[in-house]
């Protein structure tokens, strides 16, 4: 490979320019899905090709990057994307939410509230919230344009009719600034209230070739019925490692005899709390000497 073939953060400058234009448009029309010419990336679709392209277009050499997958910094997807940018952009990386300037995420929003100046990039598998209700793209575009969102409530109606409550637990549809209905990517509905944030939130769908965005402090309302209001649900338990009662938990099976433990899905949040001395029910016994 020659020096000329290398460009900062993998993508060539014209591609980044194209993506930035789409990002600006997406920020100007919150919740609107902007088509963009998604590129072939050196990873399979479904691994975050959309998020990686958005991150590549946003990164500067001074940025500090954090990558999380289901809240964890140490899973395959997170590790491989972090390594990708360490190699192609030579940016600093971190696992601490507060220190990061750009955070690429899959399926979670960090527990620690984000601040102004931070960018949160989501990997999105299917950007169209109406897709499984209305298979025709021409029709869903028309429905967005004319604000015909009755169908979205039909889905919630079906949930209640069959399960007694709104059972949609992730990718819970939201209405942005009273206009566009948006799929917040498959984050748990526990994270929906955190969509109203001080950070810039960018959503990239590589295979579907769509980008959408939430500017800071945008009003985001989760759809519901008057008599079945939205509820941000989580496992009714405390974290077994750090004792936190308000964070989103993963259930981990520990043996084949029904043993299980609940731990924070946000590994950085949990580790920080443990370092501060918080302990949970299953924390290792400390030695008193």
């Amino acid at each position, binding site marked *: 490979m020659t020096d000329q073939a290398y460009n900062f953060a993998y993508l060539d400058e014209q591609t980044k320019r194209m993506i930035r234009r789409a990002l600006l448009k997406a920020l100007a029309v919150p919740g609107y899905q902007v088509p963009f010419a998604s590129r072939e990336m050196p990873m399979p679709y479904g691994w975050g090709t959309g998020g990686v392209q958005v991150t590549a277009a946003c990164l500067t050499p001074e940025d500090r990057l954090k990558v999380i997958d289901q809240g964890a910094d140490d899973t395959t997807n997170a590790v491989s994307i972090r390594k990708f940018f360490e190699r192609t952009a030579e940016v600093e990386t971190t696992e601490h939410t507060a220190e990061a300037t750009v955070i690429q995420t899959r399926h979670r929003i960090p527990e620690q509230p984000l601040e102004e100046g931070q960018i949160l990039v989501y990997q999105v598998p299917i950007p169209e919230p109406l897709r499984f*209700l209305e298979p025709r793209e021409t029709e869903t575009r*028309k429905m967005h344009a*004319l604000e*015909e969102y*009755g*169908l979205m*409530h*039909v889905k919630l*109606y*079906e949930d*209640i*009719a*069959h399960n007694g409550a709104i059972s949609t637990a992730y990718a819970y549809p939201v209405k942005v600034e009273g206009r566009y209905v948006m799929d917040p990517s498959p984050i748990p509905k526990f994270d929906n209230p955190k969509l109203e944030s001080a950070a810039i939130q960018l959503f990239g769908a590589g295979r579907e070739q769509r980008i959408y965005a939430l500017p800071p402090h945008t009003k985001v309302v989760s759809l519901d*019925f*008057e*008599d*079945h209001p939205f509820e941000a649900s989580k496992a009714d338990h405390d974290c077994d490692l750090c004792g936190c009662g308000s964070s989103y938990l993963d259930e981990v099976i520990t043996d084949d005899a029904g043993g299980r433990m609940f731990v924070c899905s946000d590994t950085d949040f949990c580790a920080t709390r443990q370092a501060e001395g918080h302990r949970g029910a299953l924390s290792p016994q400390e030695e008193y000497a």
Partner: protein
Amino acid sequence: MTPLLSVQGVTKHYGARLGCGDVNFDLWPGEVMGIVGESGSGKSTLLSCLSGQLAPDAGKVVFDTRAEGPRDVLTMSEPERRMLARTDWAFVHQNARDGLRMGVSAGGNVGERLMAVGARNYADIRAQAIDWLGRVEISEDRVDDRPRAFSGGMQQRLQIARNLVTGPRLVFMDEPTGGLDVSVQARLLDLLRGLVREMGLSAVIVTHDLAVVRLLADRLMVMKGGQVVETGLTDQVLDDPQHGYTQLLVSSVLQV
């Protein structure tokens, strides 16, 4: 009194062939208009033009809207026309599968139009859905079943409930009894006749079944080769047909 729907010179060509040519009629509130003719006579083309699904080459379709009085549907903007289509209008398809969401429960199917016009209370939506299922003779315990689990006749009745729940004033029906066996047809016709009279609906019914128009329609229009060949009161046209084609049509009905 202004007509609810006034059709003036509606013409549609498919390339060089004529779909329907220069059709004129007025539909008055509470009136049911039947359009009969053989396959290919242009009756479905005409219905698509009237209901805004197809743009005719020439002519006007003036609908008496609730808010602004008579307006040409064809010059309306698309949002207005779609709003009309889910409030004041209803369209009953020949094949219930075209008009229903097969993956959504019966209650959800009926409730969709309510939610589309802003209903956001689950208990109210469900109560109305159950009420309407009762009116079309579908028992309450089927409310959470998908239309796939319904018989053809039930699917057709569900489609009617789904369309009438928002209290439309004009119903377009395309062969509403097509593909149903005779006893189910008879019950459906009975039901339709009851609903039309009870709600004071106006309707345009396209069919090739003369028995259907005899029972439901006040007035009749006979089409052949894209042209209207005869119009008049239903009984008058059927009992004393003037045009050669109408005579043929009436005499073609099998007597049991």
